[in-house]
C-alpha cells in the first residue's frame, strides 16, 4: 500500500513567512498562484501588454522587498497584491503623456494557449455572478471607480448621472459583493 501523503500546499501566509526569510522557491509558488489575476488586472487598466508586464513584475518585486513588513492582520496577500497592482497601474496611466490609441480590444487576439485555464473556483464564480447581477448603473460606477480610478464626481460626469446616484451605486454594488462574499465565508 502506498503510505505517501500528498504534499501539503502552503497557504499564502506561510509562503509570505518563507519569502520574508528569502526563500525564492516560495516566491515562485506565490507568483504562480497570483500572476494570472495580477497581470489580468494590470492589462485591464493599462490596456498595453508591455506596460502590464512591467507593472506586474514591479508589484511582485515590491512584495519581495517588503515581505518582512507585510501585516497579515490588515489584509490577505491577495488583497495586498490586487490593491498594490491597481495603485501602480493607475499611477502609470496618470503619468502617461498621451493616451495609447491602440486599445486591447484592437490588439491582435491572444493565442489560445496564453489564456489561463478556467479554474473551478467557487469564489471566482460567485464574484462573476454577483457583478453580472448588479444593475448596469451599479456595475458601471464600480468599474469606473476601480479600473479607472475616477472620483465620484468624475464618474458622474462620465456616465452623465447625478453625483448622489453615483455614490449610491458604488455603495450598493460594493455592499452586494460584500454580502455575497460573507455568505460564502460563513458557509
Amino acid at each position, binding site marked *: 500500500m502506498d503510505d505517501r501523503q500528498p504534499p501539503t500546499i502552503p497557504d499564502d501566509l506561510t509562503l509570505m513567512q518563507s519569502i520574508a526569510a528569502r526563500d525564492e522557491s516560495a*516566491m515562485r509558488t506565490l507568483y*504562480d498562484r497570483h*500572476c494570472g489575476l495580477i497581470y489580468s488586472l494590470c492589462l485591464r487598466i493599462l490596456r498595453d501588454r508591455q506596460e502590464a508586464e512591467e507593472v506586474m513584475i514591479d508589484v511582485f518585486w515590491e512584495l519581495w522587498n517588503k515581505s518582512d513588513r507585510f501585516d497579515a492582520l490588515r489584509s*490577505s496577500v491577495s488583497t495586498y497584491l490586487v490593491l498594490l497592482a491597481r495603485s501602480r497601474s493607475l499611477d502609470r496611466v496618470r503619468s502617461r503623456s498621451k493616451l495609447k490609441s491602440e486599445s486591447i480590444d484592437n490588439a491582435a487576439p*491572444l493565442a489560445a494557449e496564453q489564456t489561463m485555464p478556467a479554474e473551478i473556483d467557487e*469564489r471566482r464564480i460567485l464574484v462573476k455572478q454577483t457583478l453580472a447581477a448588479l444593475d448596469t448603473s451599479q456595475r458601471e460606477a*464600480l468599474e469606473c471607480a476601480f479600473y479607472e480610478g*475616477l472620483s465620484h464626481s468624475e464618474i458622474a460626469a462620465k456616465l452623465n448621472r447625478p453625483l448622489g446616484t453615483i455614490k449610491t451605486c458604488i*455603495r450598493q454594488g460594493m455592499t452586494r459583493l*460584500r454580502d455575497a462574499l460573507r455568505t460564502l465565508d460563513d458557509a
Partner: protein
Amino acid sequence: MTCHERHDLILLYAADALEPAEREMLRQHLSGGCIECASRLAEAEATLAHVPMALDQVAPPPMAKTMLMRRIATPSRRESARPKWLSYTVAAGLGIVIGAVGWQILRDAPRQARIRQLETALANRDAQLGDLVKVIRANEVSLVGLTRADPQPRASGRILWDKDTNHWHVWVFDMQPPPPGREYELWFITPDQRKIAGGTFKVDASGNGTLTWPVPPNIGPIALAAITDEPLGGVQNPTGAIHLSGKVE
C-alpha cells in the same frame, strides 16, 4: 460625524472615489487609530480586491517570471560601453556617497519601524481602554475567569459579560502564540454541550489579546466559555486544543 455615519464613506474611500477634502478628512480620522473604522476599511478593501476576479484571466508571458526571479536572485548589473577605469571610478565615487546615505537610512530604518509599531500599539491601547470604560459603566456585568489548559504554561483570561449590550469582552494574558497558520477562537458552550463559535483573535508579542463579541441571540443558558486554536478565519465546530476555559455562572 459618528463612525456609523462614516460606513458609506469608508466604502467610497476604499474605492478611491472620494473627493480630496472628504478623503483627507477620513484619512485623518483613520490615522487617529479608530479601530472600528479601520476594521471596516479592511473589509471594504478585501471586498474591492475581489472585483478583478470577474475578469477573464490572461497568462503573463513566461519571460516575466524569469525576469522577476533574475531580479530577485542578483543585484542589478548594467553592462556599459564606457572604459572600465571610468566605470570603476564612477562606481567608487557613487559607492562612497551611497554608502553614507545608505548607512543613515539603515540606522534610521529600525527607528522608523519602531515608531510605527509604537503608534499602532498606542492606538490599540486607547481603543482597549475605551472598551473597558464602556463595560465598567454598564448596569449589569458579570465576570468569568478563564484558567489555562495543557498547551499553555502561564496563560490566563477574563471575560466581562456586559448584560446591557449582551456582549462578551475577553482579555487573555501570557498566551503562547498559536501554531503557524492558526489563530484563537472563542466558544460559547451550553449545558447540553452545544458549541457555538464566537470570534477569532490573535495575541501580541507579549501574549496578550482581546476580543469583543456579541452573545448569540436565543442561545439560552451558557455553561462554559472556551478558547481553542483553529485554522485562520475560524471554524463552525471546534477542532483544535483547548487553551483556556471557564465556567459561566
